[in-house]
């Protein structure tokens, strides 16, 4: 349902490229230094490659499996030049993203309902502000649901984003039942004919069963008011997150059925490599990448660009 937010355009791809520039330069520096000497595939060589992948947060298992394939090919003499190795690594990574099934292109009847979930501090509210901005630019009407009634000033923060992006907002008092906010928001969206409803939720650790149950309730409420809602459940993942990111994705998916990821804070030096493991295991598409604090610092994720940028 990427179509919900429009197709990536060329300038956005450029920005995505820029956002992973640091990732790329780090990795390609390492891979490049491996390639420069024209060395043969020796154990030391693979050890350095392993270190590069581990440093990008790909994790022990994913790294090992990717390297096993490379090693296998090398043993069969299929990889005897640096170019071939680079192509092989790219192919390996790309195949992980391309194994994803294309999402159906059909548009549900408005309002389309998007839940934004994740652990504390990943950038959910900021991402919602950017999403709203993006949709408004496309001429859609957006209604924000301030269902993070727990964190201090979360409602005020979302209100500021609503003003900035000229979106509508439905809020209740702090401490209110988030499911009741969802109810109000969807009722209002139906009455007003809003195109998209984006539901902000409180950050929660995936280990807290009561809070996960709260999300399930919100989802049920949404489904009762609008058939098929929520149409998207986006898990917001911080690019600095390490191996726990995989556990987060697993748990949120098990409880809620996450439909896509947003990878935030990719403008720093963190690699966000854990998404490779997530995509491999759970088959979740990465919808967007967050690259800064401004409203337009959100670009659609494009696997081709991402993988190629890693080695450019």
């Amino acid at each position, binding site marked *: 349902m990427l179509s919900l937010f429009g197709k990536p355009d060329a300038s956005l791809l450029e920005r995505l490229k820029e956002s992973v520039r640091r990732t790329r330069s780090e990795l390609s520096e390492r891979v490049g230094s491996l390639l420069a000497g024209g060395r043969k595939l020796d154990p030391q060589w693979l050890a350095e490659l392993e270190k590069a992948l581990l440093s990008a947060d790909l994790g022990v298992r994913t790294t090992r499996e990717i390297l096993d394939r490379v090693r296998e090919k090398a043993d069969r003499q299929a990889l005897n030049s640096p170019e071939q190795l680079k192509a092989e690594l790219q192919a390996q990574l790309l195949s992980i993203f391309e194994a994803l099934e294309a999402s159906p292109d059909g548009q549900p009847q408005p309002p389309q309902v998007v839940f934004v979930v994740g652990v504390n501090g990943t950038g959910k509210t900021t991402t919602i502000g950017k999403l709203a901005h993006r949709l408004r630019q496309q001429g859609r009407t957006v209604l924000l649901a301030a269902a993070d009634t727990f964190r*201090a000033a979360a409602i005020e*923060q979302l209100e*500021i984003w609503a003003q900035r992006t000229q979106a509508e907002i439905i809020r209740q008092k702090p401490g209110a039942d988030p499911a009741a906010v969802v109810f109000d928001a969807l009722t209002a969206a139906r009455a007003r004919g809003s195109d998209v409803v984006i539901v902000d939720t409180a950050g929660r650790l995936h280990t*807290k*069963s009561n809070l996960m149950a709260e999300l399930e309730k919100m989802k049920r409420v949404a489904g009762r008011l609008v058939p098929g809602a929520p149409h998207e459940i986006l898990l917001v993942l911080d690019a600095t997150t390490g191996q*726990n990111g995989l556990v987060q994705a697993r748990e949120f998916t098990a409880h809620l059925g996450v439909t896509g990821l947003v990878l935030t804070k990719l403008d720093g030096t963190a690699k966000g490599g854990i998404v490779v493991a997530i995509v491999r295991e759970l088959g979740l598409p990465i919808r967007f990448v967050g690259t800064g604090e401004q409203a337009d610092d959100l670009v659609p994720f494009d696997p081709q660009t991402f993988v190629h940028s890693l080695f450019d």
Partner: protein
Amino acid sequence: MFEALTEKLQRTFKNLRGQGKLSEEHLRGALAQIREALLEADVNVEVADTLLARIGEKALGQEVLLQLSPDQQVVKIVRDELTALLGQPARPNFASRPPSVWLLVGLQGSGKTTTAGKLARWLGRNGHRPLVVSTDVYRPAAREQLVQVARAAGVRCFAAEGLQQPLEIARAALREARLSASDVVLVDTAGRLHIDDALMDELAQLKRELQPAEILFIADAMIGQDAVRSASEFHRRLGLTGVVLTKLDGDARGGAALSIGKVTGAPIKFIGVGEKYDALEPFYPDRIVSRILGMGDVLTLIEKAEQAVDQKKAAELERKLRRDEFTLEDFRDQLRQLRKMGPLEQLVGLLPKVGPLAQLPRDAQVDEQRLKRVEAIINSMTPEERADHTLIDGRRRRRIARGSGTSVQEVNQLLRQYAEMRRLIRQMGKAGAASKLRRLGLGKLTG
């Protein structure tokens, strides 16, 4: 998903006991597994490799002791090395002349504002008069957030209305602190990337102006390999005096603690363990090491148990168990003590995933609601019924079910469990019955 390191090592070292010295060959397998455990826990790969080299050196050629199995011996070396890296528990710093300034810095979303509330609360409880102030003029509603956090945490906040410059706000807060006789000013700052030159300069300026007694780096326990870069850059620009590790109430291993410790040398002073403003604890290096290695935070568990369990009652229970006088009333006491230890899911998380406890599902859920219902059922019994459960016939069961708002089936189930428990206690004999019982009780309530 993680296999406890100790179990992996046990396999590697099978049949090694009593074979003289630990050889290089034996160690190679062990070190590979330790490396994997460290990497799975998000310890930076360079840091892990440096550590492994040292561990290998120390372990090689050591006598295989009779009293420790080789795996225990290696684990001990690993623990000692990691603990040494984290240093001693450190006390927070105060200026010789108040007010002391504590500057809270870190990446976006690491938990600075929540931590400001928790630290202020902690200071208040320890006889200080803290004042919190936010210099985050960038993120929408960030200053409002601290105002609300302070209100919820019951601490004073300087709102700095009308001021828009971080430096001006901080200066005004210092004046306010002197006027109001506050002795610690907690300065919350905007989250920023370590590569954002302009914002890092702003922090350096704040430091020059405020001469803080503490510059605390607030770090998310879930952070991965990049922790070394962000922490070392913050340290290079500011000279960190301490670290607060947040969100440790989740299931992240917190290996970043080692990475950050290694590159900054700054001690971890506090850890955040929950959403409540009291959920801030002093940091003990040995405990986080156990967590990183997957050995569970047994010490914390023991401490919590000690806090909650009334020693006199425990002795009384022991006596009753010996005499086979364990009544439903005692059972209810046990439940209450169990609940006093805190949210049960948190306790389950503290248990090491080894031995018999490895069978606990990783996401074992303890149903607090069920505990409450069990207690309600026992509350609805008469004292005579609690003393002698055989009195409880069908009519009494219906009455108890009605009185407790439960069903006869639930009452039956409880009575069955209780009878089973008594039977087991008799079987186990006398020695150590209480501890076995405690384990049994917890086991029954999970899964």
